[in-house]
Structures are given as structure tokens and as C-alpha cells.
């Protein structure tokens, strides 16, 4: 027995491993939880041990039991005596014969307690009836006289029940459920006693333990058949399952050991494969999120397994059978989730439908529209994910009547479509509805308890009709389908005028069955277009029906409620009375006004005019200027209005002053003092002031208790003057109380005042202007603005007046009655620019301008002429005197006597030499008295400067050098050096045209030569022009060559002063030109020896630096230096 326990222990250990590997953990845990419950342990202390070691403890306990038995039975002659019992009534004892004694030589067994009863037998086992508690001495006698003695106690006896026999093992393959049935044979045991059962499920062929459960029953003295169901995670089709069962009995009056029975023979469940289906489970509906195992029975190798698009690892079962395990399966699509196993030559599959059980129906609402059927609607809540045949079936059941209505839809509906109609039973008002939703995964229900009379939402009222009762009362009738006989209806009539004001009136109506309902609607206006619509509910309000269709209705006409508003004016010639009236407003006309009747009555007679048709609101009657009462009546199809009357004559009022008023926007505000004499009303009429009499634009009537009003009219325009007249009404007639001129809005004048100059003197101007016409003034004239300033016509400065300009003088004339203005303190013979503008509160009008020249001041003019003449005469006289006194000096200075060369002896002496050279003749006059002596040494290479202070440059003319060689010729000049040069005309340079000019370099007389070194580098070949201050370029400075070239380019052409900077410095425009202390005063321009005038250097357009470079006398006579 102990060996078998060890074997089972080992088996179980192995099984646990398989469980973990194959199935979900909770399966194994389930087995353990069952394991804790049975109380099969002998030693109560061991029950407290952890359940993880039950089998180990079981094995150890049995070993100990055996040891104890051996020990106790050996007390006699030390041989084993073991006793067991199956039903606690018969003990079966065996023992081992002593050494040397054959087991067949047993003679008898005697038990002392039972009156020394002895059982004769020849074997080493004996069945004896159960002994009473306590020790019993057992003696075994052998034939050879050997005797063994034992002490036998119930405590030493083991209770081992018979192996249970399972009656039936069946399988439901569609649900993978095993059903086990067995008999407990309780009739064989004392009762009550507890039985503990243990069932194991093994998976073939490896005999892995996949399930082990224990549970208790109570034996009741009768044979009872027990059932046990178990659902396998792995579909039963994919593996053979074997089931075994064992038990032990716990009877508290039995003090011996309680031991498990042997396992029953295993019963197998296996599935016979068919050709069609190879994958299991088929078409299963499971809860989304749960785990599931699919297996495939195949004769060939399975290559892959997939659920949907996802491939899963294959779990190999046995043979070629495989499984895949899906955890947390997601909700399926409409056609379910496909599970497919692929073999080399085929595809096997199944469909699984993962979804949810129905949600509790939400917002279950039951109501009736017509008391014929109850409509229950609900929201199904969370989608189940199951459609088609697995869609949720709803059943609406009413518990009071016991009726129920099914709701079956093949496909998923929108939430609004979940509605069920329940036919009402007559007389039943209270309903207790339960809505149950059911699908393969479960069911859910929701209940509502209602009194249907409080849940009425009537249908839309139809056939709405309107019938006239009078001009202010109509009846509305409509049909409401349904049986409302037992309740009152609450209906609403919406009355909508064309002017969009809405009014809702409630009406409570006694309900009826399939009836039309009628309601009178009063307080309507005659001849008014109404739109009616109706909706209904019940007095115990639940919901309104929808509004019925609208019905438009025009109420009938009634007589006009009052006469038209009337006024009258006398024609301009005073012979005719023109009567005006206003059309009645629609709410007072009470119909379409067809015509008016006008009559006038005096004390003597009554005169009626013919009927005046509607669009005309004016009548003219020829009347004497006497008191008449004019009466106007408006007529429509229903009748005539009360007459409105007005007296033809006004009560005179001499105390009228004209006032001014200005409005805002399109309205003008008028107020007046209350006058107790005015008993009927006030009338304010107005007209455009520019219109001829009788002028009437409009009028309004104001109650007699009012003292103010606001006049508003679309006809009012800004900038237009209106006359307003306030009349008070007395019993005798109307009296003019006030006359007001006003503007709705003042604008600026559109014309300038027309002004003329009345008088002009040397220092003043008198201006006169005219009024601006009212139409062009466009506001109340507030004043004039008069500007004037010096200025002539067409001078830009005078075109506009800018405020703030210091020259402008401004006069603001606020006295609008002033029509003239004298402007004083003006200058004589001066042009003045005069401007006049009018202004209102609306702004400044346009300006009118005029140019006026003041008269001449004669005295000033005379003085202005005489003084310059006198000054000129004095200057001339003084100059003449001075010139006369200094005439000798002037003559010597400017016109010295030129000696006659023929009288010169020196010439005669050298005549032969000098012949042919007129120049030398002139130059070499011996007896001349020199006014200046210069020693010139003319050298061909480098002229040696003898005197650095006075230098006379030498003019060299290549053409003449051959004829008269001036080399080594020292000349003492008596006159300023004469320089001849061919001036290259810049424009004519290319054509080679030249002109000869002889210059006197006056600069050289006063200015030492400056910068000789700089000038040396200039190439004579480049500078073809005359360079009076230049030396001939004997030594060309190589290092300056480049600079010299630039210089040469710039100075191509005539340069009297090579250094243009010096020209610049002495420009008359330059501030330095006026500096008398300047040492670098240059006279710039050479003077012609022939003209004796200083020459202006030619203007060099291309070289602005040289422009105006020369200072000359001509500058004295020119205001504009650059001109």
C-alpha cells in the first residue's frame, strides 16, 4: 500500500507540470482547493500542515501506521497482526506465522474477551465481527503447540472502504463536458457518516492528470447515485479522457484508521472522428476577453494555426493533433472570428464568436399614444458584438396580465429602433413590464412599473380646421386618434399673427374615443391673418404631442373702430378748404377701407361730398370763410367708422414768436407748457419751409395731457429746414400756440456768401456780403469767418489758408446780422487775398475768395525815387573830382607813354642784329626806363632760379626755337612777362584748330611759384596745353609717373593755374574769398595784353572744380555767381 501511495505522489507531481504547461493556472489551483477540504488525516495536528504536502504526509502517515501496528502486535510473540475493515462490522485480520512455523499449521484463534471464543482455522487470516472498544487479547495456537498472543484494539484497525464503482461516464462534446455518475452504496454503512470523494481526470495517451477534485457527501443509510460534471478547457474531441474515483469514510464512532479506497478502474471517453469536422470547438460563443483552446485533429502534419490574421504557436497534443491557446480573445466581427489550421494539403477551421452578454436595457420607457398599445423603447447599452442568430433576443413581459412580446431582429439596429408594441388590455391601467435581453452568453433585464394613464403622449392632432364665429372669435377643431375616453386632454393652441407675435392658450377638453375636438378661440382681431396650430397632452402631463400642421386663417371684418385722423388747410387763395386724413392703421381699420365720406356742416347747412375711394386721403371743398365742422367717416365692408370732426377755422393768436429747434437722427423733440384751455388734444404739423403754402407734410395728434413729443418721420432729411406748428384744441377749434423752425440735423452751408469790396483805400478795405439762401444754408447760420493776407493771384502760398500761419489774419463774425466789414491797417499798393466763409453747427461752408490791391501811398513813392537819384549824383561828383585830382597817377598806371622805337639809339646800334625780329626790337630798348627789372636766364635743360621771389616763366614755342634760339640769352624785361600759348580748345582739340591768345600772368607778379617739384613730373607730351607755372619736364620723376598721368588726364586742356586746389580755395563762393588776411590770394585769371581785361577762364563743364575758379571783376556785376 505504501508503494502505491508513492507511485501516486510521483504521478501527481508529473501531472502538475503538465497542467502548467497545457492549461490555465486556475485549473491546477482548483484541484488544490478541493484538496484542502477532506478530513482524511488521522492525526489532527497534521491537518494544519500546508496543503502543498498532502500526498507526502499521506505516505508518511501510512508508513507510521504500519510501524505502530507491527509494534503493538508484536507484544505477544512478536509476530504481525493486521486488521482492516470495509464497513466497520467485520474485521479482516492477517498475521505472519512465526519463524519455523508453517502457516498451514494454525489450529485456532482465540479472543479472550468474547468468552474465550475460539475459531478453528488453518490459515493466517481471519474475519471476525467487530470488537467492542478496548483491548482484546488474541491468542493464535498452532498445531505444534506454539502460541502467539496479540492485543487487538479498534484503534489499530484500518477502515478501507470498497473501491467505488462508477456507473456511467458520458461526454457532451459540443460543450466539452464530462458527466460522471456513481453509487455511494450508503446502505452498507452506519449512518450518518461522512464520505469524501476524490475524482481524477487523466488525458490520454500520456495519462496526464488534468483534473483532481475532492468533495464530501454524507451517507444516509441508502444507496444514492451522485453526479459530477466537468468542462474541459481542451475540447474533448482532441484527446481521450479517463476518469477514476476513490473515497474514504469518516465515521466518528470508529476510532481506527481511515484509509482511502483504491481508485476505481478508469473509464475512458473518446471521440470518433468524422471527415467534416477536424477543429474544435465548433461555432462556440464565448465571452470576449476570456481564454480558449482550439485543437485540430489531423492525420497529417499541421503547419500552422491562426486566429483571424494572427498566427499562434502550435501546442502538440499527440499524434498530429495540435492545439492553440488564445488568451483574452477580442470581440468578433459580424461573421465571427475564423480559426484556421493549415496542413500540407488542406485547411481546417472553425468559427468562434466572442462577444458580451446583453447589457442591462437602459432608459426603458413605456408610453401610449392612443390607449390601444403601449410602446416600450429602450437603449440596449453596450453592444454585444454578436449578430445574426446570436443577436440578443428581447422579451417584454407584463407580470399582471402575464402576457409577453418577443423582439427578434436579425441584425444590429440603431439605438432608436429598439421598440416593442404591447397591445393594451381593456381596463388595465397599471402595468409591470420586465424587459429581458438574452443571448448565448447570458441575459439581463430591466423593469418598469407604470400607470398608463400617466404615460400618454398623444399622436399628432390632424385635420385642423378653423371656423369663424365672429370677427374676433373662431373655433378650432381637430382630430386626435386614440381612445381618451377616461381622461381629460390638455391642449395648447398657438396663435400666431402675421407680425410674428405668438400666443399660446391652454384648453382642457374631455377626452373621447376616436373623436374630433373643438375649442373656441376669442379675443382675436378682426380682419387679421392668424396661423393656428395645436398640440395635446393629458391632464396628468407626460409629453406633448408634436405640433399639428399650421392652419392660416383671416378673421372677418368689423367696422373701423374710429374715424380717420383729420386735418385741414386753407388754400393759398383762401377760398378752398383742403381736408386731409390719414389712412387708418390695420388694427383700427378692422377691414379693408373701401371709401371715405366727407361732409361739412355749419349752423345753416350740411354739405356732403361724394364718396371718396380709398387710396385718396384728401378732399377740397369750396367754402366761405366761416365756421364749419368737417366730418370724415371711413367705410369698410362691415360698416362706417365713427366720424372724426374738425373745425374749419382757427382761433387767432397774435402772440407767436418763431423758435428754433434741432433734432437728432431722424427725430426732433418738441416740448411746450401745459395749457388748461386745451381740452381735446394738441396737433403738431410740419412742412418743408421752402415749399409754398398751403404747406403740409404731415401732422400728429398728441393727447391733451402731454407737454412734449418726439416727431419722427422718414421724410425728414438733414440740412433741410422744416416749420413745425403746435396747435392746441379747444372746444371752439384749433389755435396756433407755437411756431418752430428746425432741422433734423444741421449741415455745413453748401455755398459761400457772395461778397463784394465796397471801398478800398491805401490802408483799408470795406467788404460787404449778402445772405445765403435758406436752402443752401442747411442749418442755422452761426457766423462768418473772414481771412485775409497779403498775396497775389496765382501765388501758391495764397491759394489756401492754413490756420496758424502767421501772415493770415482771421476775423470771426458771430453777429449774423452784420453784413459789412472794414479791414484796416493795411499796406498801400499791396495785393490782399480775402476769403469769407459762413458756418453753421454743421460745419464751415465753402470759401469765397477775392484779391484786392490797396491804393498807392504817393508820398512814400516820391521819397523812394528821390533818395537813390540823389545818392547817385553825389557819388558821380565825388568820383569825378577824385579822378581829376589823380589823373597823372592814373595815366602812368594804366596808360603809360609808349616810346617810339625809332627814337631809340639802342635800336639803331643793333639794327643789323635785330633786323627781322620785331620782338627783339621791342624788348631790347636800351634807353628805356624800366619799371621793373627781371633777370631771366633761359636754359634749355633746367632753368636755374636766380631769384626765388620773382620768377618770370619762359614761354617756349617749339616752332620758334629754331628761328630764335633763346638759349643763354639773358633778357631784362621791362614789362610783365608775356606768355603766348596755343590754347587747345577742348571741343576743337581733335580737329586741331587752335587760337592764339597772349596772356599776362598777373599771378606771377605777386605770388612766388609754388610746388615746383610737383609740376616737374608732368609729361609735356601729354600736357599739350599751356602751363604758365610749369617748368619743362627735363627730369621726369619715374615715381610720380602714374600720378602725373592721372593729373594729365584731368588737366587736358587749358589750366592757367595748374593746381586746381588753389582755384578752389579762392572761389568767390568760398568763405575764404572774403578773407583779406589770406596769403594765398590768387587773382586766378590771366589778363589779356590786348584787351587789358581780365579774362575769365573758359567754363569747364566737365570739371566742376574749375568752375568759377577765377575771381574777376565780372563777378561784381553778377548777382548770381553761377549764372
Amino acid at each position, binding site marked *: 500500500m505504501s508503494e502505491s501511495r508513492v507511485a501516486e505522489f510521483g504521478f501527481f507531481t508529473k501531472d502538475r507540470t503538465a497542467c502548467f504547461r497545457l492549461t490555465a493556472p486556475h485549473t491546477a489551483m482548483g484541484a488544490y482547493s478541493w484538496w484542502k477540504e477532506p478530513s482524511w488525516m488521522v492525526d489532527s495536528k497534521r491537518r494544519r500542515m500546508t496543503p502543498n504536502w498532502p500526498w507526502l504526509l499521506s505516505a508518511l502517515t501510512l508508513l507510521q501506521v504500519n510501524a505502530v501496528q507491527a509494534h503493538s502486535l508484536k507484544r505477544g510473540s512478536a509476530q504481525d497482526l493486521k486488521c482492516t475493515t470495509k464497513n466497520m462490522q467485520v474485521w479482516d485480520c492477517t498475521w505472519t506465522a512465526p519463524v519455523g512455523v508453517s502457516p498451514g499449521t494454525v489450529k485456532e484463534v482465540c479472543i479472550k474477551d468474547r468468552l474465550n471464543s475460539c475459531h478453528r482455522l488453518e490459515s493466517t487470516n481471519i474475519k471476525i465481527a467487530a470488537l467492542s472498544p478496548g483491548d482484546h487479547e488474541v491468542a493464535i495456537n498452532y498445531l505444534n503447540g506454539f502460541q502467539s498472543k496479540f492485543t487487538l484494539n479498534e484503534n489499530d484497525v484500518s477502515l478501507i472502504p470498497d473501491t467505488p464503482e462508477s456507473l456511467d461516464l458520458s461526454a457532451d462534446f459540443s460543450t466539452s463536458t464530462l458527466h460522471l455518475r456513481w453509487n455511494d452504496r450508503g446502505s452498507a454503512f452506519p449512518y450518518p457518516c461522512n464520505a469524501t470523494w476524490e475524482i481524477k481526470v487523466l488525458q490520454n495517451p500520456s495519462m496526464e492528470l488534468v483534473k483532481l477534485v475532492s468533495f464530501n457527501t454524507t451517507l444516509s443509510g441508502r444507496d444514492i447515485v451522485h453526479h459530477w460534471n466537468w468542462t474541459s478547457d481542451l475540447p474533448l474531441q482532441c484527446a481521450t479522457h479517463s476518469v477514476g474515483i476513490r473515497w474514504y469514510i469518516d465515521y466518528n464512532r470508529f476510532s481506527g484508521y481511515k484509509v482511502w479506497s483504491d481508485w476505481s478502474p478508469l473509464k475512458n471517453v473518446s471521440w470518433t472522428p468524422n471527415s*467534416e469536422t477536424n477543429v474544435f470547438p*465548433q461555432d462556440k460563443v464565448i465571452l470576449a476577453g476570456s481564454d480558449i483552446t482550439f485543437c485540430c485533429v489531423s492525420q497529417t502534419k499541421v503547419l500552422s494555426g*491562426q486566429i483571424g490574421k494572427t498566427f499562434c504557436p502550435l501546442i502538440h497534443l499527440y499524434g498530429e493533433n495540435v492545439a492553440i491557446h488564445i488568451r483574452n480573445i477580442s470581440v468578433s*466581427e459580424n461573421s465571427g472570428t*475564423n480559426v484556421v489550421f493549415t496542413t500540407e494539403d488542406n485547411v481546417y*477551421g472553425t*468559427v468562434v464568436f466572442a462577444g458580451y452578454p446583453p447589457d442591462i436595457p437602459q432608459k426603458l420607457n413605456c408610453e401610449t399614444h392612443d390607449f390601444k398599445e403601449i410602446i416600450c423603447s429602450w437603449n440596449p447599452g453596450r453592444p454585444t458584438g454578436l449578430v445574426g442568430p446570436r443577436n440578443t433576443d428581447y422579451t417584454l413581459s407584463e407580470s399582471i396580465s402575464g402576457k409577453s412580446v418577443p423582439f427578434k431582429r436579425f441584425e444590429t439596429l440603431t439605438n432608436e429602433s429598439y421598440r416593442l408594441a404591447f397591445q393594451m388590455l381593456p381596463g388595465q391601467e397599471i402595468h409591470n413590464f420586465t424587459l429581458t435581453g438574452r443571448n448565448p452568453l447570458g441575459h439581463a433585464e430591466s423593469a418598469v412599473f407604470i400607470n398608463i394613464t400617466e404615460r400618454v403622449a398623444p399622436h399628432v392632432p390632424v385635420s385642423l380646421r378653423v371656423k369663424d364665429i365672429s370677427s374676433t372669435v373662431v373655433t378650432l377643431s381637430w382630430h386626435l386618434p386614440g381612445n381618451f375616453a377616461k381622461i381629460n386632454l390638455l391642449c395648447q393652441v398657438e396663435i400666431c399673427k402675421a407680425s410674428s407675435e405668438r400666443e399660446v392658450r391652454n384648453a382642457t377638453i374631455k377626452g373621447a374615443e376616436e373623436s374630433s375636438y373643438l375649442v373656441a378661440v376669442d379675443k382675436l382681431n378682426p380682419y387679421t391673418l392668424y396661423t393656428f396650430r395645436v398640440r395635446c397632452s393629458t391632464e396628468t402631463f407626460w409629453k406633448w404631442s408634436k405640433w399639428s400642421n399650421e392652419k392660416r386663417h383671416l378673421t372677418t371684418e368689423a367696422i373701423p373702430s374710429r374715424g380717420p385722423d383729420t386735418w385741414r388747410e386753407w388754400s393759398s387763395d383762401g377760398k378752398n378748404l383742403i381736408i386731409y386724413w390719414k389712412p387708418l392703421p390695420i388694427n383700427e381699420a378692422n377691414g379693408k377701407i373701401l371709401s371715405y365720406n366727407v361732409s361739412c356742416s355749419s349752423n345753416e347747412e350740411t354739405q356732403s361730398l361724394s364718396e371718396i375711394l380709398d387710396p385718396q386721403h384728401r378732399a377740397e371743398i369750396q367754402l366761405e370763410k366761416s365756421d364749419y365742422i368737417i366730418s370724415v367717416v371711413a367705410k369698410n365692408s362691415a360698416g362706417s367708422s365713427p366720424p372724426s370732426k374738425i373745425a374749419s377755422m382757427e382761433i387767432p393768436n397774435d402772440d407767436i414768436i418763431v423758435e428754433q429747434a434741432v433734432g437728432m437722427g431722424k427725430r426732433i423733440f418738441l416740448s411746450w407748457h401745459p395749457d388748461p384751455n386745451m381740452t381735446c388734444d394738441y396737433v403738431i404739423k410740419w412742412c418743408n419751409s421752402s415749399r409754398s403754402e398751403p404747406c403740409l407734410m404731415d401732422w400728429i395728434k398728441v393727447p391733451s395731457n402731454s407737454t412734449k413729443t418726439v416727431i419722427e418721420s422718414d421724410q425728414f432729411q438733414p440740412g433741410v429746414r422744416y416749420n413745425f406748428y403746435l396747435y392746441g384744441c379747444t372746444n371752439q377749434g384749433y389755435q396756433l400756440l407755437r411756431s418752430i423752425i428746425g432741422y433734423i440735423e444741421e449741415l455745413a452751408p453748401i455755398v459761400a456768401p457772395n461778397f463784394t469790396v465796397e471801398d478800398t483805400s491805401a490802408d483799408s478795405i470795406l467788404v460787404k456780403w449778402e445772405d445765403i439762401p435758406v436752402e443752401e444754408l442747411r442749418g442755422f447760420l452761426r457766423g462768418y469767418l473772414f481771412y485775409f493776407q497779403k498775396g497775389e493771384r496765382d501765388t501758391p502760398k495764397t491759394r489756401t489758408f492754413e490756420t496758424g500761419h502767421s501772415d493770415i489774419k482771421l476775423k470771426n463774425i458771430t453777429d449774423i446780422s452784420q453784413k459789412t466789414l472794414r479791414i484796416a491797417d493795411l499796406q498801400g499798393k499791396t495785393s490782399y487775398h480775402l476769403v469769407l466763409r459762413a458756418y453753421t453747427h454743421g460745419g464751415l461752408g465753402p470759401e469765397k475768395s477775392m484779391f484786392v490791391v490797396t491804393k498807392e501811398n504817393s508820398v512814400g513813392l516820391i521819397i523812394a525815387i528821390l533818395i537813390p537819384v540823389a545818392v547817385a549824383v553825389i557819388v558821380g561828383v565825388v568820383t569825378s573830382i577824385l579822378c581829376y585830382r589823380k589823373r597823372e597817377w592814373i595815366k602812368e598806371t594804366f596808360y603809360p607813354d609808349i616810346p617810339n622805337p625809332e627814337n631809340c639809339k639802342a635800336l639803331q646800334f643793333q639794327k643789323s642784329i635785330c633786323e627781322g625780329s620785331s620782338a627783339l626790337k621791342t624788348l631790347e630798348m636800351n634807353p628805356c626806363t624800366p619799371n621793373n627789372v627781371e633777370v631771366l636766364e633761359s636754359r634749355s635743360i633746367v632753368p636755374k632760379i636766380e631769384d626765388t621771389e620773382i620768377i618770370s616763366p619762359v614761354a617756349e614755342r617749339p616752332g620758334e626755337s629754331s628761328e630764335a634760339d633763346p638759349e643763354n640769352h639773358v633778357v631784362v624785361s621791362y614789362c610783365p612777362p608775356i606768355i603766348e600759348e596755343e590754347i587747345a580748345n577742348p571741343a576743337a582739340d581733335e580737329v586741331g584748330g587752335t587760337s592764339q591768345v597772349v596772356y599776362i600772368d598777373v599771378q606771377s607778379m605777386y605770388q612766388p611759384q609754388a610746388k615746383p617739384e610737383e609740376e616737374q613730373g608732368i609729361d609735356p607730351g601729354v600736357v599739350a596745353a599751356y602751363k604758365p607755372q610749369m617748368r619743362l619736364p627735363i627730369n621726369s620723376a619715374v615715381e610720380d609717373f602714374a600720378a602725373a598721368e592721372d593729373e594729365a588726364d584731368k588737366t587736358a586742356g587749358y589750366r592757367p593755374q595748374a593746381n586746381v586746389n588753389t582755384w578752389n580755395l579762392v572761389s568767390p563762393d568760398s568763405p575764404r574769398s572774403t578773407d583779406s588776411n589770406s596769403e594765398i590770394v590768387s587773382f586766378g585769371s590771366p589778363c589779356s595784353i590786348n584787351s587789358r581785361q581780365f579774362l575769365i577762364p573758359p567754363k569747364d563743364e566737365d570739371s566742376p572744380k574749375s568752375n568759377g575758379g577765377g575771381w574777376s571783376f565780372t563777378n561784381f556785376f553778377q548777382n548770381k555767381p553761377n549764372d
Partner: protein
Amino acid sequence: MLACLCTVLWHLPAVPALNRTGDPGPGPSIQKTYDLTRYLEHQLRSLAGTYLNYLGPPFNEPDFNPPRLGAETLPRATVNLEVWRSLNDKLRLTQNYEAYSHLLCYLRGLNRQAATAELRRSLAHFCTSLQGLLGSIAGVMAALGYPLPQPLPGTEPAWAPGPAHSDFLQKMDDFWLLKELQTWLWRSAKDFNRLKKKMQPPAASVTLHLEAHGF
């Protein structure tokens, strides 16, 4: 093109009547039948896409090609080329008529099973078109003087799967139904093209390759 085919479909009911009058001969009605098969091919492509998506993966995967197990009752369109060539006109038309009669019944069963309204609408529309094709073939047969095949007893397949017929096998049958339908339409186009040319003056012979095409 589509509009043209739609117009052809629209005028389908007139086809048998036309032929009964016997005025224009079978040529125009064969042409119309041919056009209709092409239109149905086009329509089926759209329907098959929708329906296979409804069946879910792996049925809507392009490389899914299970063996044709089950679905044995479906008329097979594939035929040996020599056998097809040797068919006479009557047999050719009869086979077409019988095949579409069966396929139409299956298709109507499919319609009853579909769980979504949109799918049912698509299937119903296609069934209507297929009914039109059947009528058109009948018209051609009448025009050529061939009797319509008598419906065999039990040819109206009851599309009510028994308890043994699992959802997966049902899906496989649906898959194969669509596939066979496609192959049949393709074959019919060839059949009617051949007939059309035969009715016309002799023309160049046409080489045909008849084989089942995947979706």
C-alpha cells in the same frame, strides 16, 4: 462603359420577348448576353470584395486558396479544353443555364444568411442581375429553338445547413460559391463570344485558354 452595361441590363427583360417575335435572329440577344456577363463580372468583383471582408481573414487574404472540399453540389465551371471545344451550342447553352440556375439558388441562400443589411442589399442586387442573365440565356436558347432544361427534382437546393454543417464550412461554401460564380461568368463570356462569332459570317478562329482564376 459602366453606363453602357447598365443600359444593357436595363433592357434585359425585353430580350426574351424580342426573340419570341423572331425578327432580328439570335445575334443581338447573344451580344447582349455576352455584354451582360461582362457586366456581371464587374459587379461580382465589387460584391466579392465586400463579402470576403465580411467573412473575415483568412478568406479575404489574396493568397488564400483552400482545396475545394465540401461545396460539391456547386456546379463546376472548369472543364477540359478539348471537352469544352467539342460542346455543341445546345449543350453549351444548357450547361450555362443549369449552372446559373443553381448558382442563383445558392446565392439567394447566401443573401438570407448575411448579417448586415448593406450586404443583403448588395447580394439582392446581384441576384437580380443574375436572374437577368438567366432570362437572357433562356432567350438565346428560345431563339435558337432549343428547349429549356427541365428542373431536376431536388435541384432547388435548400440552403439550410444542418447541425453538422459548421459555420466554417459554410464560409468555405460561400467562398467557393463566389469563386465558381466568377469562373462561370468568365467561361460564359467565352461561350457567348464563341456563339456570337458562329452566328456571324466566318471569322478568324479564337484560341481560348480555359482555367480557373483566383479572385
